[in-house]
């Protein structure tokens, strides 16, 4: 098996493996960043402030309605400029350059976050209000209610939706190959170019993605089963 990887595939096996690791790293980081964005924007959407609600609405509508590739180009070509402008406000005038990894994670995280927002908002709303009243009647404080009542149940309700977001995020990472980050797609593209075996290498890339999505589907199914172990089945 290992022999096939090193000698087969015209010697591109190891690169493809490290590309897979890179894809997983980017997908995981962007998914977590997206969860943070999603939690923040979800909270903003559920808040009483009109401004916060409007901003969150703008974020989700714009990011979900504009092609992912365009968002990636925005951060790829404009990301450093944005950071430098912010740094300029704080009096730093030097040159800041972002590496492809952080640009990719920021872009895919931004996209992933817009989808997570809706999932998280829906999940929070499906926690029955009576439970929060009951917790309050027991004398729990705001934070304790959040930690003991709201978050655990929200997580359970959000799991199926977050599973879908994860699949989207994983597939969106293929797009950051345009920033020359050496993930699966980029390695396949380079290998295809240098060996003139496009069909072979893109098929291998497809199989790698298929393996990743299949494994994560099973993982999310397990997680869902674990999260709903205390719930009676109808």
């Amino acid at each position, binding site marked *: 098996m290992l022999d096939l990887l090193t000698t087969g595939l015209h010697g591109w096996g190891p690169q493809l493996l490290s590309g897979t690791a890179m894809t997983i790293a980017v997908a995981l980081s962007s998914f977590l960043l997206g969860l943070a964005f999603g939690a923040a924007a979800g909270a903003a959407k559920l808040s009483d402030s009109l401004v916060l609600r409007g901003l969150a609405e703008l974020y989700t509508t714009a990011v979900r309605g504009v092609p*992912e590739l*365009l968002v990636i*180009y925005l951060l790829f*070509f404009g990301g450093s400029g944005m950071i430098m402008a912010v740094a300029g406000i704080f009096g730093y005038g030097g040159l800041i350059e972002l590496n492809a990894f952080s640009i990719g994670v920021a872009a895919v995280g931004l996209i992933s976050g817009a989808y997570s927002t809706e999932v998280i908002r829906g999940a929070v709303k499906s926690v029955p209000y009576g439970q929060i009243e009951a917790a309050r009647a027991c004398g729990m404080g705001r934070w304790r209610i959040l930690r003991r009542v709201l978050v655990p149940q929200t997580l359970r309700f959000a799991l199926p939706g977050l599973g879908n977001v994860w699949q989207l995020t994983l597939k969106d990472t293929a797009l950051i190959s*345009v920033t020359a980050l050496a993930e699966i797609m980029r390695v*396949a593209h380079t290998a295809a170019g240098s060996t003139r075996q*496009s069909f072979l290498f893109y098929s291998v890339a497809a199989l790698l993605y*298929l393996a990743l999505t299949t494994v994560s589907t099973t993982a999310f199914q397990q997680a869902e089963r674990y999260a709903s172990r205390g719930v009676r089945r109808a």
Partner: protein
Amino acid sequence: MNWTLMWDSLPRLLAALPLTLQLVAMALAFGAVLAFATALLRLSGNRVAVALTSAYTFIFRGTPLLVQIFLIYYGLSQIDLIRDSVLWPVLSQPMWCAILALALNTGAYTSEILRGAIETVPQGQVEAARACGMSRVRLFRRIVLPMAIRQMLPAYGNEVILMVKASSLASTITMMEITGVARRMIAQTFAVFEIFIVAGILYLLINFVATRLIKHAEWRMTPYLRARA
């Protein structure tokens, strides 16, 4: 923010709009046919047909669209069998490769939406139609399909938006649709934000119109849900 530059970029981006719309329309049209055939085969109960269609949806839903586009555009062209076949005049053009990839992709997703919708048609309706003496084909055409299409419309609306966004990937295989033109203009002018905003608004407008159209279709198909005047 450079307003004149934004204003000047508009005509060039607008000129790319027809290509984007064409890609989306063709992909959706071919995708719908493909989805219809796939869903019917999947529900046919024939073991070979079920296995084949399951494999099709599994592969196209489990891999990124970019891989599918590259596999069709770069990959197929190096197989001699295809180069020598009658399909070559079609498959040698990036336009048709993009449409093929987009159609295969949306066909896989839409077939699952359609299959789910067909499965939600209440058994009682089918039984009633059968009791009226309808043949299988007529039953499907008059009862099952109209109800399923009504049921699937909201989910299909999401799929249409996904296709509008997915058409941007055609720019990776040399198609100069909105994203392709935007990318080129960003590289020429370095006005990243201005061009991103104009191109983004164009996409948002397309999606807005698409959502309205789907909503209208939904309204047209559900007269019984409307309050009587």
